[in-house]
C-alpha cells in the first residue's frame, strides 16, 4: 500500500469527527473519498497531508509515518491556493528552489504545456479564470514530482460546465504521470467519473460505509448502464432519494 490509514480517530473538542478509519491506497491509484458535508473527509485528508495530528491511529506513506507536511505529498487547494503575487511561471516554479535556473525553466515550461496554459506564462492569477487558476495549482503540485497528490474539492468553486472540462483535464494529466491521488468530494457523480475506487463515508462521526470498485475503463460513458448502476449504488449507500 502506498498510503495506509490505520485506525484513525479524531475529535474537535467534544465532537467526534472520525471514527476508526482504516483504509489503503495503492501506488498509482485514483482514490475518491465521498460523503456528506461535515463527515470528516477533509479532516482525513489534512491528517494524511500532515497538517493535522490524528487523535489516535496513524498514517503511513511508503511505510513512513506522516507527522508533518512534506513536499513528497502535495495538497491541491481550490484555486485560492495560487499565490496572487506570482505569475503563472512563478507559481509553478515555486517548489523548485533547489534546481538550477535552466532546469527550472525547462520543467516549468513542461508543466505549463501539460496543463494547457501555454501563452499565459507571464500572466498573473487575477487575469485568469477559475479553471485556469486551478490548472496552475495542479501544475505547481506536479512540478515537484510528489509521490502523492491530495485534492480537496478542487473544483468546488467552478461552474458545472467548467467542472466537467476540468475532470477530463485532470484525468488526462494524471494518466501522463500516474501519481497516487486522494480526491475528496461531495459530488457523487464526480467520484464515479474519476476514481478507480470510491470510499463512501457516513455522516458525522465519519466512518467508512463502503468501498466501491469502479471497474469502468476510461474514457467513461456517462450514459452507460454500469456507470448509472455504480452511481445509484453510491447514492443508495448515502441514503439519497432518486427524485427531486
Amino acid at each position: 500500500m502506498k498510503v495506509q490509514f490505520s485506525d484513525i480517530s479524531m475529535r474537535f473538542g467534544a465532537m467526534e469527527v472520525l471514527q476508526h478509519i482504516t483504509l489503503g491506497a495503492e501506488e498509482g491509484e485514483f482514490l475518491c473519498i465521498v460523503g456528506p458535508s461535515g463527515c470528516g473527509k477533509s479532516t482525513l485528508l489534512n491528517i494524511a497531508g500532515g497538517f493535522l495530528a490524528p487523535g489516535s491511529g496513524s498514517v503511513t506513506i511508503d511505510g513512513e509515518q506522516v507527522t508533518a507536511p512534506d513536499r513528497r505529498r502535495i495538497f491541491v487547494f481550490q484555486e485560492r491556493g495560487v499565490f496572487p503575487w506570482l505569475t503563472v511561471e512563478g507559481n509553478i516554479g515555486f517548489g523548485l528552489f533547489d534546481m538550477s535556473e535552466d532546469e527550472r525553466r525547462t520543467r516549468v515550461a513542461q508543466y505549463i504545456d501539460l496543463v494547457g496554459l501555454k501563452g499565459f506564462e507571464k500572466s498573473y492569477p487575477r487575469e485568469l479564470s477559475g479553471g485556469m487558476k486551478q490548472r496552475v495549482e495542479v501544475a505547481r503540485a506536479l512540478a515537484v514530482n510528489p509521490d502523492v497528490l491530495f485534492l480537496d474539492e478542487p473544483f468546488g468553486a467552478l461552474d458545472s460546465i467548467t467542472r466537467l472540462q476540468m475532470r477530463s483535464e485532470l484525468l488526462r494529466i494524471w494518466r501522463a504521470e500516474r501519481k497516487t491521488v486522494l480526491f475528496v468530494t461531495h459530488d457523487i457523480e464526480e467520484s464515479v467519473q474519476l476514481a478507480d475506487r470510491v470510499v463512501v463515508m457516513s455522516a458525522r462521526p465519519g466512518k467508512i460505509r463502503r468501498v466501491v470498485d469502479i471497474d469502468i475503463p476510461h474514457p467513461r460513458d456517462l450514459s452507460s448502464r454500469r456507470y448509472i448502476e455504480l452511481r445509484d449504488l453510491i447514492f443508495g449507500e448515502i441514503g439519497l432519494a432518486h427524485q427531486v
Partner: protein
Amino acid sequence: MSRSRLLPFTGIVAALAAWQIAVMLRPSSLIPGPIAVAQGIGELAVRGLLVKYVVASLFRVTWGYLAALVIAVPLGLMLGMMRLGEMAMNPILQILRPISPLAWIPIAILWFGVGDISAIFLIFLASLLPMTVATMNAMHNIDPVHLSAARNFGIPLRARMRDVLVPAILPQLIVAMRITLGVAWLVVVAAEMIAVNSGLGFLIVDARNAGNRYDLVIAGMVLIGLVGIVLDLLMRRLERLDSVRWGYASE
C-alpha cells in the same frame, strides 16, 4: 471626452473664483485673495526660500518616517506572528495611539532640545505606531492556505517569511505606508510650527508673527497641500506594481 477631462479642475477653479470674489467684496487687509497668494509664492521663489523650506520639511519627514518604518515593520511582523507577544503589548499600544505626537513636544525638547532632531523624533513617533499596528493587522489577514502551501512544499521558515509572508502582506503594507506618510507630513508641519526655524510649518508661523504676511501664510498652506498631494501620488504609484496590485479590489 474632453469634457470629463476638465471636470476635475472645475472644483478647484470654482473654489478659487469664489475666494477671489469674497476677498474683493470685503477688502479686509488681512486675508488675501488667490492672486496675492500666487504673488507670495513667487516672492518666496525669488528669495530662494521656496526650495529651501520645502527641502527642509521633506528632509525631516524622510528621516523620521524611514526610521519609523525600519522599526515598525519588523516589530509588527514579530507581534503578528507571536499571538502572546501581541496580547501582551496590545493594551499598551492602544493607550499610546490616541496621544497626539505633539503632546510629546515637551519630552522631545527635554531630550533633544529645540531643533531638527526634536522634529524628526516627533515624526518618528507619529509614524511608528500606525505602521506597527497596520503591519500586525496585515499579518492577521494572511490567507492561511498560502502558509500551508508553503509548508507543504518544504520551504524552510526563513524562506517562508521572505517568499510568502512578506509578499502576502505587501499590498496592505504599502497602503499603510502611504497613509502613514500622510500622517508624517501633517505632523512635520505642526512640529515645525513649534520647534524649529526653517521649513513650511515655520514659514506659516513666522510670516504671521513677523508682519502679518497672510499672503505668505496661505502660500505656505498651498505649498503644504501641493507637496502632500505629490507625496500621496508617488506612493499610489507603488500600489500599481504587479507584485502588489493583486491585493486591491478592481477599480
